């Protein structure tokens, strides 16, 4: 069950949005700055504030990564492969109007309008660790509601075993989906997936905001999932469809490079990626590497999902 606090969470508990705003305006003022990496996000208007109650029981007690870093250092290939591409190019994404189709093996398939979703479920704030497969990590105060609540509405059929997430396919809005000289970086649309029990786990969050604000485009607006015990790419962004299926979905990265990216992709310091040792990570904003924790520190809550599984094989 959710642990709720009576007091309204204000974003001041994390970082005062006014503070990052004034910083961003300052940055926009400096003309030369526009040419520098990480700064171009200043060109985008700051998202509107979003109220949510902090779920203390599900939140880490750690200082969040700077908003400025969390919104300028992103992997979101729909905008481009470089870390600063999403912040630079995210203006082309239109997060309204937006709807999400939830269907497949369910009793009550339904298309939800984004604003309807925001009204249907009470929003909570959760401070989660985000661990990228590239061996860096952030602490982010997300705003959203458990995926289990949404799936409950559509009533999964007994035959459903997996949940598949599909990101918007629209090369007009996503420049990274236009083929380049060497073809496309990934097969679009981006597809991710979870086992049904992982999807129903109370940590799995449908996310619509962060840092007390509506989700910025470069972070997966208007709606994404956040699965904090898995590498970041498992948390699909800008979702238009959630489908319950019988077979394990063919996910984007596993299709692109099955040897490097498995379906489960649980954060696991003992299983190294051919390119990055996963034993350590760099927390953005820190100097020294930290040791990476099994399941990104969520082992006590999720390890039971995998009892009896060889996680070296199911990486």
């Amino acid at each position: 069950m959710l642990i709720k606090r009576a007091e309204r969470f204000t974003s001041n508990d994390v970082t005062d949005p006014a503070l990052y705003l004034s910083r961003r305006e300052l940055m926009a003022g400096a003309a030369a700055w526009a040419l520098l990496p990480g700064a171009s996000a200043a060109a985008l208007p700051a998202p509107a504030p979003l109220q949510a109650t902090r779920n203390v029981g599900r939140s880490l007690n750690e200082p969040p990564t700077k908003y400025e870093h969390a919104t300028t250092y992103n992997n979101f290939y729909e905008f481009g492969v470089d870390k600063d591409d999403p912040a630079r190019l995210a203006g082309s994404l239109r997060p309204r109007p937006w709807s999400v189709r939830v269907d497949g093996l369910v009793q009550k398939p339904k298309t939800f309008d984004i604003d309807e979703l925001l009204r249907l479920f009470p929003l909570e704030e959760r401070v989660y660790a985000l661990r990228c497969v590239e061996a860096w990590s952030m602490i982010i105060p997300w705003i959203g509601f458990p995926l289990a609540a949404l799936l409950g509405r559509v009533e999964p059929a007994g035959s459903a075993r997996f949940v598949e997430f599909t990101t918007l396919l629209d090369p007009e809005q996503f420049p990274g989906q236009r083929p380049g000289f060497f073809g496309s970086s990934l097969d679009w649309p981006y597809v991710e997936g979870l086992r049904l029990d992982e999807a129903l786990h109370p940590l799995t969050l449908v996310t619509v905001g962060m840092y007390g604000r509506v989700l910025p485009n470069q972070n997966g607006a208007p709606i994404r999932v956040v699965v904090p015990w898995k590498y970041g790419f498992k948390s699909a962004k800008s979702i238009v469809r959630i489908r319950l299926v019988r077979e394990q979905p063919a996910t984007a990265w596993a299709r692109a490079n099955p040897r490097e990216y498995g379906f489960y992709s649980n954060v696991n310091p003992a299983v190294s990626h051919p390119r990055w040792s996963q034993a350590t990570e760099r927390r953005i904003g820190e100097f020294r590497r930290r040791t990476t924790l099994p399941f990104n520190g969520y082992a006590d809550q999720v390890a039971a999902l995998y009892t009896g599984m060889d996680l070296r094989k199911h990486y």
Partner: protein
Amino acid sequence: MTRRGRIVLKLPVWAACLAPLALLAWRAATDQLGANPISFVTNTLGDWTLRILLASLAMTPLGIVLGAAWPVTLRRLLGLFAFAYACLHFSVWIVLDFFFDWARMGEDILKRPYITLGMLALLTLTPLAVTSTSGMVKRLGGRAWRRLHRLAYAAGVLAALHFIWLAKVGRTDQYWHAAVLALLLGVRLVHWGVRAVRRRRAAAAAVGATPSAASRP
């Protein structure tokens, strides 16, 4: 070439090779290295190591194509700058990235092919930097020195592979760099081929005749 001419040629090379470092220092001083400064510095230094290495490898082919002698006079300077950048790139990895965690670094050198390749590229460049002085050219003798310094191409290939291996799906700049390297090697191979054919023809023609100009090395 006159002393003055050499200075006029080399000054821009010094400026161009030091500019990326100056920019990096300026960014560091003004907090503009982005969210992951260590990665930014590593990558910037790696990029410039490769670019300058390619520039040094371009001088001989450029001389061939232009039929000019001046490009070759810049080769050593560019090569030494490439080596200096490689050393900085490597030092950042040791000091900032791993903070002297020798066990982890050793493991990475053995287990991550891209690190192995980078290490080999640096090791290949080292004897070239050491023997880059005029004194060393004399001591080794021109022939042996030239043969040793062909390793520069091996270093180029290793560096290009290092980049291809580390670059993630979707990136393309690694292939462009490899293509430039292939082009530079291609010019040399064609040149060697043409020279070998000419030499053989000249040798054939030389039976009973005086050596022709084409047989000059």
